[in-house]
């Protein structure tokens, strides 16, 4: 059927022009002079440090947001309380609001003239332009993912099994570990993958609060920007390829763990 072929062509061409061709180009540009310059760019101590900062921030943000996400999902699905609708809407906010706005909000809170800034500085704690602000920004932007994945699964699940366990004398902890958690584990894993991807890739909020000091508070993503601005494009391409490979790995993991019920 020609109409079918035309539509297929339009869809594939669009994906090629917007998505695949640009990505392929970065890989080509990175490896056009062989592996040696890539390796050199990646072993630059400043680049290594930037990756370390990114990994530290992700290592703190992902577990925190996983626990928070599961708790929020349980609260939203299983409990009735005042302000539930508000909590539900608030969890989604980081998805809709600009990362720059998130960064600015943290900046105003912890900056020199902010609410907490002077007090913290008086006690010798620097949040802004230091690791804590990077971690906070990363946590903020990656809040929704676990909860968003777990909520529909929990709804689907119902609570009959838990009630049955309760009548057989299982404690709350036993019910959670033996029944609820195993049932939602794929949704949790999928959420964790999305959270990790977001944490490693965050730019806007981190760019505002980190100060982007080379070798101190630069993350992998802000370093890409700085290298391009300084016309050290080969370094930027090398970092980008590493981040892109992580993204591809994330895609593969997502395809493998995707919950079968796709919720709106």
């Amino acid at each position: 059927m020609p109409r079918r072929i035309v539509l297929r062509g339009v869809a594939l061409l669009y994906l090629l022009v917007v998505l695949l061709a640009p990505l392929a180009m970065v890989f080509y540009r990175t490896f056009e002079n062989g592996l040696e310059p890539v390796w050199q760019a990646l072993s630059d101590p400043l680049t290594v440090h930037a990756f370390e900062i990114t990994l530290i921030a992700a290592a703190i943000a992902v577990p925190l947001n996983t626990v928070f996400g599961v708790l929020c999902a349980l609260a939203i699905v299983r409990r009735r309380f005042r302000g539930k609708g508000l909590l539900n809407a608030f969890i989604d906010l980081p998805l809709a609001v600009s990362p720059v706005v998130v960064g600015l909000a943290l900046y105003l809170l912890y900056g020199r003239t902010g609410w907490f800034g002077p007090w913290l500085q008086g006690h010798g704690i620097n949040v802004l332009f230091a690791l804590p602000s990077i971690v906070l920004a990363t946590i903020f932007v990656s809040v929704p993912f676990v909860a968003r994945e777990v909520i529909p699964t929990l709804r689907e699940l119902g609570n009959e099994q838990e009630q049955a366990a309760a009548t057989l004398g299982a404690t709350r902890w036993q019910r959670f570990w033996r029944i609820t958690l195993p049932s939602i584990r794929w949704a949790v894993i999928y959420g964790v993958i999305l959270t990790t991807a977001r944490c490693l890739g965050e730019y806007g909020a981190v760019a505002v609060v980190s100060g982007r000091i080379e070798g101190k508070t630069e993350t992998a993503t802000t370093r890409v920007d700085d290298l391009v601005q300084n016309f050290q494009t080969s370094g930027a391409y090398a970092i980008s390829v590493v981040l892109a490979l992580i993204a591809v790995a994330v895609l593969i993991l997502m395809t493998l763990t995707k919950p079968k019920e796709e919720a709106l």
Partner: protein
Amino acid sequence: MVLPLAALLWEAKKDGAQGFWQAISNPDAIAALKLTFGAAIVVVLINGVLGTITAWVLVRDDFRGKSVVNSVIDLPFALPTIVAGLTLLALYGPDSPVGIHVAFTRAAIVLALCFVTLPFVIRTVQPVLIELDVEMEEAARSLGAGQLTVFRRVVLPNILPGILSGSVLALARALGEIGSLVLIAGATVHDTVASIYVFNLIQDGESSDAAAVAMVLLAAAFVLLLAVGVLRFYVTRHERA
């Protein structure tokens, strides 16, 4: 989460309503907000149409490598936005091998926003199309409806809520996007999008002006989230009844 946002509100209101309006009605701020909303709407229309087509192709068509294409759709969610910007700069920037040089123009802004918002409509329409009964379309066709009529009267009403909620989410994302734009559209101080405008104000130490423009973006995000909520409520009205 609440405290930082409260601090933002406080800073925006610090200079009073007048200061707030002054920051918002600054010609550069107005230009930035106009450009942001304009580009976002263009992008949402592009992705609304092409996203629906892509979703249809992924559900109803069959070809070699379809599952790979299906996985690739999520790439913009997984790829850091700064890398997205760099990929576009590599292909459509000054060193473009195909001779298309759109960097630092409005076309670049639209291109970058298309990239980052690509999955939204596809991923909201796809599940609805999968659920949709092909028999309904066959029935319409057997009663003499043409292809276009079937699409307009049978398919579209069913997938429209999906298209709309995907578009609203994409709009929210497009309004706040920065990472993919800094490299390909961020060099200019004037004539830039709101998020970069805010970013530049912060760098210049003009935090109360930045907070005022940020409040506009925050308010837009709230309104759009609310719209998604209302849509979701509307879509599930039969299940809840």
